[in-house]
């Protein structure tokens, strides 16, 4: 079980790395910021796997915080994007 969990956690990290290709390609800023959602979900999964593997409930709390604030970046992007495009504040 230890090897399976760490293996899947490593696989998820590799997944995130591949997701960086979408950031490089774009084409719009929205496409790029969307990858943060992938990061967030993968980060939560990796943290939960490590927490279970090491029996460390504190790591699970970190995952909880990630989950709690997961969409704030997209929220900020959508709220502030139009203002930036207009060139105002």
């Amino acid at each position, binding site marked *: *079980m230890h090897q*399976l*969990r760490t293996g*899947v956690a490593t*696989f*998820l990290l590799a*997944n995130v790395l*591949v*997701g960086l*290709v*979408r950031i490089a390609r774009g084409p*719009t800023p*929205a*496409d790029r*910021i*969307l*990858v943060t*959602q*992938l990061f*967030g*979900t*993968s980060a*939560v*999964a990796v943290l*939960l*796997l490590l927490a*279970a593997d090491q*029996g460390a*409930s504190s790591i*699970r709390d970190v*995952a*909880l915080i990630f*989950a*709690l604030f*997961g*969409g704030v970046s*997209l*929220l900020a*992007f*959508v709220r502030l*994007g*139009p203002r930036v495009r207009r060139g105002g504040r």
Partner: protein
Amino acid sequence: MTVSGVFSAGFLLAGAFFFLAGTVGILRFPDIFTRLHAVTKADNLGLGLVTVSLMLEAPSYAAALDLAIVWLLVLLWSSVAAQLVARDALDRGEVPWRGA
């Protein structure tokens, strides 16, 4: 390996598969709207399967409840974020993909 261990391993591998599907989707899909599906559906199903896998082997009910709360929060956020990003893209005048 116990019965719950076998199920746990199965759910974990299924979860990894859906994460892979999400990543393939975000790379291959043609526009922002279809990519939203990959990120907010496939990945969340993957995370759900991973949490179920860990809940089966959780040391206590409190730990299992924690895992469930984490998944529900991620689901909540990604559904909200999907709506926001899609509406923002429509407002900017992006036209949804109609097929090749």
